[in-house]
């Protein structure tokens, strides 16, 4: 859409130097320029601002269309989902799709909802506990081997799951954990490279004096962590919690390979199974899609601050 390539950047360093060198004289120029032409830039700015909003609003409409369609299709009769001509709003509105989906024989979405909550809930608890402890130790405690382990942690951030999942599957199979949530939940209590890295950054930002004061008073390191440091990084714990919950709710591959009994499925896998067997029941399937999505949208609006904070952090990491 915008005609530029991302790679080619000519003369960037020199032009930056020039810009910085001339910054001083430029300040004088701007004041004179602003005085001489008070109206021209404001009109031009207003036009670009309007254009900007026109493009943004078009983009918003495109981005919202799938949501709108998901919701209205979930309220249509099966035969009306692909009616000709297209039906832009559900008529008649069929709320029963949701009631039927929640308790569908063989595909009980209410059960799936509970399974997803249980799964994402435990993974979140495990991740927050393990990553805050490991992140704190990497940031603040001195012990032999720390630098090696931390280098390995950073290296493992770049390791794609494709190279590990087969032996990991075989390992959990040998433990007799297939068909249970154990292979999906237990690893979370052992930490996650991404969030350990993030927690470490947060603990680095805390003043060391607080811990020193407690040490003088004879407090142990464990007490210092739980009583003094942990309460100070509550925002980081919440960022970890909301993203872990979101990503676990999205998780599809793990449940697909480890779970076998349909009653155990989380929402994503349940929805996938429903599509496999009940391909013509589009209204109910879309009700299932809405049920799979809605809890995350609610979570987002409750914890929006922590989502936005977390996104900012993931970019700074790079």
């Amino acid at each position: 859409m915008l005609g530029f390539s991302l790679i080619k950047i000519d003369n960037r360093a020199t032009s930056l130097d020039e810009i910085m060198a001339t910054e001083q004289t430029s300040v004088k120029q701007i004041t004179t320029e602003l005085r001489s032409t008070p109206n021209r830039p404001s009109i031009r700015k207003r036009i670009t601002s309007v254009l900007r909003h026109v493009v943004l609003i078009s983009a918003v409409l495109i981005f919202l269309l799938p949501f709108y369609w998901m919701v209205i299709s979930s309220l249509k009769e099966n035969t009306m989902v692909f009616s000709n001509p297209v039906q832009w709003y559900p008529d008649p509105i069929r709320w029963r799709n949701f009631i039927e989906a929640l308790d569908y024989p063989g595909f009980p979405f209410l059960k799936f909802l509970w399974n997803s909550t249980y799964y994402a809930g435990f993974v979140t608890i495990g991740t927050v506990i393990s990553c805050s402890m490991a992140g704190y130790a990497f940031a603040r405690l001195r012990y032999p081997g720390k630098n090696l382990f931390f280098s390995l942690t950073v290296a493992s951030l770049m390791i794609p799951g494709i190279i590990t999942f087969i032996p990991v599957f075989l390992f959990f199979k040998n433990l007799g954990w297939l068909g249970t949530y154990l292979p999906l939940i237990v690893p979370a209590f052992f930490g996650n490279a991404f969030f350990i890295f993030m927690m470490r950054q947060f603990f680095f930002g805390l003043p060391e004096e607080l811990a020193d004061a407690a040490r003088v008073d004879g407090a142990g390191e464990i007490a210092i962590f739980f009583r003094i440091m942990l309460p100070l990084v509550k925002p980081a714990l919440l960022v970890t919690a909301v993203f872990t919950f979101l990503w676990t709710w999205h998780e599809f591959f793990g449940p697909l390979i480890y779970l076998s009994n349909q009653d155990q499925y989380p929402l994503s896998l349940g929805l996938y199974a429903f599509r496999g067997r009940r391909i013509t029941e589009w209204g109910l399937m879309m009700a299932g899609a809405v049920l799979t999505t809605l809890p995350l949208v609610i979570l987002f609006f409750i914890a929006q601050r922590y989502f936005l904070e977390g996104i900012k952090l993931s970019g700074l990491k790079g």
Partner: protein
Amino acid sequence: MASIRNPWSNLSRRRRHEAWVGLLFTLPWIISLFALTIYPILDTIYLSFTDYSILEAPKWVGLSNYQEIFLKDASIQPAVYNSLYYALLSVPIGLVLSLGLALLLNMRAAGIGVYRTIFYLPSLVPPVAATITFLVLFEPRAGVINSILKFFGLPGPAWFSDPAWSKPGMIILSLWGLGYMTLIFLAGLQDVPRSLLEAAEIDGANVWQRFWHVTIPMISNVILFNLVMNVIWSFQVFTQALVIGGTNGTPLESTLMVMVLIYRNAFRYFKMGYASALAFLTFIVIMIVTVIIFRTSDAWVFTDKD
């Protein structure tokens, strides 16, 4: 009375205590690092030289899995082609569009928060639900997208039913989720010092020159981050492909991605050795591409030398 104790013996005891707590706090993660990352990498490489059906112990077969991959398996060629097609188009298009959106959003005006929220919302939708929604939107005969195209007099393709259009459909699906990247770019853009841009403007640099010579260098580390993460993700695309095309990659193997092929061999055919060989080769490709990006990044990523 504490002050009477010798501070040195006190310190060494403290140091020992600190080391024990440090080890205790990281021990679970160190176990995980070895049991769930380092050992599995080595085991995948070992298994790739074996024939292993889970029921019997792995049997050493040398390079025969690799011979089968390069010489015999007819699904390899479409899977590699599809994965490259998907990665080479969805990553650059996604980067350019999300950077463009981020530039439009990078202003001090009312309503920015609302735009930001709306662009991020699709990233909340679980991939299975998003893919099923797109199957409805892009339904060939009565889907809303083709109805809109028809309204403008354009012929609508059969999308996920047509081998030529199923991958473009998947790329459009991936673009729906670009809000996450957009917000990462936006955070980077908001860190670009305004004084630099204003100085360039006063020196007569036009919008494009300011973009090329100031904005891009200042956010080049964010571009690198988004590029690398997206390359790693898109080579491993799985959920969307499985929901659309199943393990056969219908229509006509056009949505058969490498990860789907690996899944099929491991969990449908129980050829763990063969799947490991495929996984190892894919890993090598991802690593090579990542290293190339990092090596060339020295030329285009601007690092502050202060």
